[in-house]
């Protein structure tokens, strides 16, 4: 017979991109019960906007909407994975500020912010709800989640490459196949070894001609880059235009586990610090770093995509023009929010792609600059 004490607390995780397999693996490992919630969509965003303060950042509104939905479905604890020390970003006030807003509607819940990859710190946060949690379970769960996310990121990259070298149908079947495999694997070692299989599988497809194709790096904060609904499916759209899109910040980097640091990384970091001396918030310094990295690599253009009123990204956005002139690389800035329209978005991307295409063929930077491609 179930008593009040035996009743398990129901958790819900904030979802983005392919995160559902990672959070499921993590939850299963530490033994918590989760409730499936939807990815951000028009509905949840509209609900979030109803309650959120006017000038709060767009992620705040998204999370608020998702939270409302999670509570409707019976979740008691909401988990927001950030995996990073947040420093000055508004995300540090997530949860408590949401609580204050929703208190007025008579709802009560708790929020866990996973703001580091330190298993001991995470253990402490879950201890209250799961008494039999151990450090081993948490570390294993974290490793699983991290592996799955970075594997899926690789799949995403190959998907784009296959799409560009062959067609969309074959790319999709590749994606579906690997998605299934990665979801069903639940051993860390197998996942580690899977990177090799994945690479070998990709080699069966014709290689992409990296020299002649237009390359654009899409940079910004990791949630916007990973969630197709929020970033308006920018990677797909660029592929549609025949451009190879490179993703800026990667999960493997975001997890703050310095596995292999090369001298190039250190040089890059020093270069970054010339432009942004302190990390002003979660992923801002990475945005600058990625801009420099891909500009140095000779990418044709850079797109910064960021949520509206995100303060760290706005700070980065105001430094990027300098990088654009210093490295002679055009940058397009795309703030996204609930009012971002499909048509306007596509127009801007198409115009940008046209510009860098002309620039590559004529190799005349000055004419582009006067055309307004760069600030």
């Amino acid at each position, binding site marked *: 017979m179930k008593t009040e004490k035996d009743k398990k607390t129901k958790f819900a995780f904030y979802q983005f991109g392919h995160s559902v397999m990672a959070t499921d693996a993590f939850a299963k490992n530490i033994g918590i019960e989760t409730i499936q919630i939807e990815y951000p969509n028009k509905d949840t965003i509209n609900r979030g906007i109803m309650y959120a*303060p*006017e*000038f*709060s*950042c767009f992620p*705040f509104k998204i999370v608020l909407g998702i939270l409302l939905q999670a509570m409707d479905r019976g979740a008691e604890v909401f988990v927001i994975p950030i995996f990073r020390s*947040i*420093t*000055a*970003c*508004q995300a*540090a*006030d997530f949860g*408590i*500020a949401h609580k*204050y*807003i929703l*208190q007025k509607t008579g709802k009560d819940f708790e929020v866990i912010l996973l703001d580091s990859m330190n298993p001991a710190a995470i253990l402490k946060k879950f201890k209250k709800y799961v008494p039999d949690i151990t450090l081993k379970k948490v570390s294993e769960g974290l490793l699983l989640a991290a592996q799955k996310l970075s594997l899926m990121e690789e799949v995403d990259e190959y998907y784009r490459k296959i799409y560009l070298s062959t067609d969309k149908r074959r790319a999709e079947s590749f994606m579906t196949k690997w998605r299934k495999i990665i979801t069903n694997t639940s051993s860390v070692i197998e996942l580690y070894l899977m990177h090799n299989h994945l690479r070998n599988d990709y080699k069966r497809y014709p290689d992409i001609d990296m020299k002649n194709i237009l390359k654009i790096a899409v940079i910004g904060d990791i949630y916007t880059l990973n969630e197709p609904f929020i970033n308006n499916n920018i990677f797909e759209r660029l592929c549609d235009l025949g451009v190879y899109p490179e993703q800026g910040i990667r999960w493997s980097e975001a997890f703050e586990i310095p596995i292999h640091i090369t001298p190039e990384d250190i040089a890059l970091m020093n270069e970054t610090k010339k*432009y*942004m*001396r*302190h990390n*002003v*918030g979660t992923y*801002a310094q990475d945005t600058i770093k990625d801009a420099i990295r891909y500009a140095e690599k000779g990418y044709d253009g850079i797109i910064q995509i960021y949520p509206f*009123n995100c*303060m*760290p990204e*706005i*700070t*980065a*956005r*105001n*430094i990027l*023009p*300098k990088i654009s002139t210093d490295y002679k690389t055009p940058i397009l*800035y795309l*703030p996204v929010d609930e009012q971002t329209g499909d048509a306007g978005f596509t127009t801007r991307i198409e115009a940008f792609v046209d510009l860098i295409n002309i620039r590559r063929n004529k190799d005349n930077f000055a004419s582009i600059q006067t055309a307004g491609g760069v*600030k």
Partner: protein
Amino acid sequence: MPDSESKIRIGIPRALFYYYYYPFCYKFLTELDAEVVVSDKTDKDVLQQGLNTSGNELCLPIKLLYGHVLNLKDRVDYIFLPYMVSMEEGTYYCPKLIGSPDIVKANIPDLKLLSLDIDMDNFYSSLLASLKAIAQTLSLNPIKIYAAYKSALNYQRRFNRYIMQGLTYDETLSLIDRDDAKKIAANISSKENGKPITIAVIGHTYIFNDPYISFDIIRKLRERNVRVWTSDRFTEPQIKQGMSSVEKPPHWSLSRRVLGSAINYSGDPVVDGMIYITPFGCSSDSLIKEYIEANIPHTKRKPIMTLTVDEHSSDAGFITRIEAFLDMLERKKHKRHSDRMGTDTTPKIIDINTILSELSEN
């Protein structure tokens, strides 16, 4: 000054951190034999210059910083712009403020900045490194810098004592170096104490202390026979004390000050109402109202008015709102007073019809 030619001229923009740590910076730099130049007071030109050069989506205070830096640029050898990351472990300044030297540097060419790292997360390494860097730039002995740092700290403490008596930032600056400072301060506060209504102006100090941007709100209120207290009036421990009941205080130190002073003032029976002044589009301020609402119990709540300022707001609309707010406070106070006395002293509205009907009855 005879030797002003040989001195290094260092400019301090009259924006953002000027309103927190100017006394410290001033003392620190003058002790190092530098000449300190402050940018002009904010006016139309400074603001316009800032608006013309600043980038997208920035908030008003940062746009103003641009204006002040441009104002100084050609007059000085260096511009002093510290990187204020955090003043206390676990709290931070807002991202745009932390990145403000970087933003300014990236957008205004040929700028010579003199920077200082204030980061409590690794305080000693960052401060010492940047002090050393300053010594190198000014070609000074690092030991001298330490002495200057000490005396600057004392100067700032003395300054804070005055500002806590209810003086404005500019008033305190003008009297701090005088011998009869104490007397003048006492004089001002005694004059203010006699006023019937007290209003607490809360918000960021770089907004309400800047007469141009805040439409001189403090003077306007004082002219209308109101005693004005601001969020500058509390020491750090007092702010912390006020926030002791808050479940999880905001992690932005400037927001903490707003919230802490709002809670402290709401517990103060002398304060009649609060005016919360915030720049347009301030992301850190957007959540603070929720914090204030949630953390001040209903019984303690004071009337609070939010005034949003930006480069387009106008003087007239501002005055109307202030006057309406004051009228409301006065009526409230009057009502409370008459309730206690047991008599109704509110003036009766004279209606011609009632007078006529009374006459006809007689």
